[in-house]
């Protein structure tokens, strides 16, 4: 029943997405709302979010194949598949955001080694290749030294790319909201959190097996710790600006705490995505129910996605030079941004692809077959 729901949701969201994909590929970036002031929007936020889920899921797989924790036996393959599927969605999301996605090969051949984007591109590519090799080995039942080595390398790559987006944003010294040493760490915590949450979701709605009680307990405790760490890093990140109280430095943070994004921040990121799951995770009987666990995972993921959006957009919708935003009018020159329907449609399509790929993987790949 749960899987049928996933299929239905997957088809529906993909159908909406096909319109978005068509529009983007035929009309270019005519119908997007990001511009020359707010240069990155929903697609970049989703790139960070899907990329974080991919990394987090890989780290869950490493509990099985690298650290060989008994409680996580059998989690490796579904976690690796989830990792690859969400990574593909992340790459598609950032691809759509590029003015010339067909030139992405240049990032491998004619690259600038100082660029944060290059570190991301190379990091995710190496990580993706390692995750793919690990999955192939695992599907073939080759759980030997080779898989171990691949998992060690993948583990290092995963930790690196988990924080890399924070560095990519943070090296813009002209954007005080991002230019904080804590940002890469915050991205790391968020990636780990989303990985654990995704596993709760997968085991609730897709896995044909009953979840192992010990693994559920570990995921639950891990999620509690990670949610607290994420919330703490958000507080540390904000407090550095807020306590200084220099207007230009707190312009972005204030949008979240009391400005235009207060509803999203307090309601979805903190309320739905952090506090509610924290309270529910402390109820032992509730998390033994896999469906309840899945819904908790879903809340965490929604909060996590919103958190990425609230890092990307408020960093950009502040003026870099006094009165520049009123000096000219025209397409994309304003500081206000909300995603267009095409942007939402594309994200819907990517979610659809993820849902369908996860469901199809469950049905047609031996993800849950016991290894010899």
């Amino acid at each position, binding site marked *: 029943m749960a899987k049928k729901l996933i299929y239905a949701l997957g088809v529906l969201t993909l159908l909406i997405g096909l319109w978005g994909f068509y529009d983007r590929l035929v009309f270019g970036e005519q119908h997007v709302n990001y*511009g020359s002031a707010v240069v990155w929007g929903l697609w970049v936020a989703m790139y960070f979010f899907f990329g974080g889920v991919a990394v987090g899921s890989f780290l869950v797989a490493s509990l099985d194949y690298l650290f060989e924790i008994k409680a996580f036996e059998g989690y490796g393959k579904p976690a690796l598949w989830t990792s690859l599927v969400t990574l593909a969605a992340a790459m598609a999301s950032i691809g759509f955001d590029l*003015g*010339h996605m067909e030139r992405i090969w240049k990032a491998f051949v004619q690259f600038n080694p100082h*660029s944060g984007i290059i570190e991301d591109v190379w990091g995710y590519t190496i990580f993706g290749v390692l995750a793919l090799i690990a999955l192939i080995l695992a599907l073939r039942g080759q759980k030997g030294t080779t898989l171990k080595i691949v998992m060690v390398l993948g583990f290092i790559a995963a930790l690196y790319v988990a924080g890399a987006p924070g560095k990519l944003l943070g090296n813009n010294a002209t954007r005080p909201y991002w230019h904080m040493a804590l940002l890469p760490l915050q991205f790391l915590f968020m990636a780990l959190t989303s990985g654990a949450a995704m596993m709760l979701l997968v085991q609730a709605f897709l896995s044909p097996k009953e979840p192992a009680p010990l693994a559920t307990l570990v995921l639950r405790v891990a999620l509690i710790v990670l949610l607290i760490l994420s919330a703490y890093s958000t507080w540390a990140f904000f407090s550095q600006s807020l306590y200084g109280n220099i207007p230009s430095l707190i312009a972005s943070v204030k949008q979240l705490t009391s400005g235009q994004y207060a509803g999203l921040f307090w309601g979805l990121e903190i309320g739905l995505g952090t506090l509610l799951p924290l309270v529910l995770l402390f109820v032992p009987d509730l998390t033994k129910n896999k469906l309840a666990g899945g819904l908790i995972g879903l809340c965490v993921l929604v909060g996590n996605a919103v958190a990425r959006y609230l890092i990307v957009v408020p960093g950009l919708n502040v003026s870099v030079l006094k009165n520049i935003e009123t*000096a000219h009018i025209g*397409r994309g*020159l304003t500081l206000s941004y909300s995603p267009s329907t095409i942007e939402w449609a594309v994200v819907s399509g990517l979610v659809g692809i993820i849902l369908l790929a996860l469901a199809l993987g469950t049905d047609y790949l031996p993800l849950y077959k016991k290894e010899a």
Partner: protein
Amino acid sequence: MSQETTGLLEKYASEVFAGLVAPALEGMEISAAPADDLLAKEDVLVRMERELKRALEKPASERRWVMVIDLRKCIGCHACTVACVAENKLPPGVVYRPVLEEEFGTYPNVTMKFLPRPCMHCENSPCTEVCPVNATYHNEEGIVVVDYEQCIGCRACIAACPYGARTFDFGETYTEQLPVIFDGVLIGSKTAAAYEHASQEYGQAWKREGRHESPVGNVRKCHFCLHRIKDGILPACVTTCIGRATFFGDANDPDSLVSELISKPNVIRLKEELGTEPRVYYIV
């Protein structure tokens, strides 16, 4: 208006005016400059054009192009913004040289400040550092350029620029909504589009056709009109400035006008504290 009325107005208006200004001029010696002298004086454009040609005789790496903008002379007419749009055929949303306006005081003590803002062509440019594919870089003369065929359109350079000097080409045009009837006879969308699309930036003919052809999907910015400079012509914003408030030239030439201007203490650069070393100076 009858001749009689005009005569009356001239007489009394000038009397009223004289009455108003006379107290302020008391004790001052006033003499009108002879028209001949004014005509004999060389326009700064002529001098700068001559110096430009002199600079072009040197090897490229020995030139140091700088722009100087005299904020005391700028009247906020935006002619430079428009000249730049016309010269580079900039589409909607792409602006290389806006004029920032700021109002001071409260009525009746109000004044405006105007700040034209081209690309600063920073010597330590944050925009070039972040470009993943080296599509934006300093050319041999130190000008920060964008290679449209190389740019992947990630917009990281826009996020990195502290001066908001870059904009993205989303593929829009001013002319696509024009009627097509009588195209070519009366001006129609195709004829108008031909004017709008024929940019000569970086000395190349950019057709900019369709939704995907560069510079659509690229980041664009001021390049000091390199395509004009190479032919010994000053940037469009400089020649269009009606207040003669914008100057351009080689700061490595000690006899140039720009060298003279930037050696004064009333010269500033924007966000000097960042250490970006802009090549645009403001006289305040």
